[in-house]
């Protein structure tokens, strides 16, 4: 469904992405791990057409994704994105945040969008917070609203950009639980994360990215338990921090 072929991007001499390949099938959950500055977020942002890439191709269901193309708006509406810093609209309530896309992009009636939004907020455990503004919600609650907002577009896939990195540790679990539910329901997901436990449990495949290259790719078990590459081992050791 998501097809990334030989994608490259550079800022001057610095190569952010260097010939990245990635195929994600429908219903698959792929986790991307790697040190900061390895190009994980950039890759995700290229898949959603938020960033330009210099070479290679990205396609979703065969349709080319390019920031410069006119079709990009329609493509973005078919792929959800969840950001590290939530990026909820601060001037709208949780309910309004979730209704925004369906009403203004998909042109759903307010009634239908409202009904759907309520159901989605219930699903992420926030039925009691429909009328709360983002500033009145904890980080974990905001991120769950953001997931509901992405789901409201009934996307083919959702891209998660370090969805739990900005959260206090005790709030991470609720967000991961929602993501696990989605994975079990068959949602296609690409997740950039530092949550190795989540990757181990949920991801069908794990990619290790470093210096803009896919260093290693395999099942969660292969990558996390038996990494073949020195750099992967080194990275995992740092992340898991066995003192």
């Amino acid at each position: 469904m998501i097809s990334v072929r030989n994608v490259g991007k550079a800022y001057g001499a610095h190569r952010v992405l260097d010939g990245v390949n990635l195929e994600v099938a429908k219903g698959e959950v792929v986790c991307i791990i790697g040190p900061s500055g390895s190009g994980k977020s950039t890759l995700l942002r290229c898949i959603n057409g938020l960033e330009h890439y210099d070479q290679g191709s990205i396609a979703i269901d065969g349709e080319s994704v390019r920031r410069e193309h006119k079709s990009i708006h329609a493509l973005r509406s078919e792929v959800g994105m969840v950001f590290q810093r939530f990026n909820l609209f601060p001037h709208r309530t949780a309910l309004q945040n979730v209704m925004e896309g369906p009403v203004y992009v998909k042109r759903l009636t307010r009634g239908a969008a409202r009904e759907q939004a309520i159901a989605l907020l219930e699903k992420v455990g926030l039925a009691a917070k429909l009328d709360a503004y983002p500033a009145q919600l904890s980080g974990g609650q905001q991120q769950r609203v953001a997931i509901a907002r992405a789901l409201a577009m009934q996307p083919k896939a959702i891209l998660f950009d370090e969805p739990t990195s900005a959260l206090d540790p005790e709030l991470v679990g609720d967000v991961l639980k929602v993501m696990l539910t989605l994975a079990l329901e068959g949602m296609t997901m690409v997740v950039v994360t530092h949550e190795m436990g989540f990757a181990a449990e949920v991801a069908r495949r794990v990619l290790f990215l470093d210096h803009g290259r896919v260093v290693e790719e395999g099942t969660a078990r292969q990558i996390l338990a038996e990494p073949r590459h020195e750099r992967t081992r080194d990275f995992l050791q740092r992340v898991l921090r066995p003192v």
Partner: protein
Amino acid sequence: MQSFLRDAQDFLPILWQGCIVTIELTLCALLLSTLLGFVWALLRLSALRVLSWGAIALITVIRGIPILVQLFYIYFVLPDLGIRLSAFQAGFIGLGIAYSAYQAENFRAGIQAVDPGQIEAAQSLGMRPGMIMRRVILPQAVRVFLPPYGNTMIMMLKDSSIASAITVAELTRGGQLIAASTFKNMTVFTLVALLYLAMSLPLTYLAHRLERAFGRK
């Protein structure tokens, strides 16, 4: 004091006419400066260098020339180029253009204060640029530019008196005419000052209300 009140009774109906023109002039100039300012701000923020540099140049020129000189230019010089405007038209267009430069900078500051993550979130929902501006950027930018906008309204009201120099029959001009024919400078200009103050008070209140209405989360 009694003569003041008597004179005031004579002068006020005339000055009242001036007040109405002042209000009309202020509203027209405010509307024009808001529209133009918004256009300049968008050009200024454009990714196209030609547009943003053009906007910077324009804003710099407008800000660097006294309002009075801009009004003289529009009222006295443009007719030589075949563009004839009434004093009122020249007044509100001149004030509108002069103020558009300040408005542009306010709008730009407001728009730039919006977190870029907001734009990305809107883009990721599939929104197009115009809709992102309307639904996401402006509602948030408004909070930043309303407080200075309130100030601008009050300054505009007062600066509309500059239009008296090109014979617009607004409040200051009315005062000048009465003073010139009656020599009662003290009475006339005290009244004029009080009338400006009286007109600015509702604006001050409105500015305060707007700030509170949009300032809440």
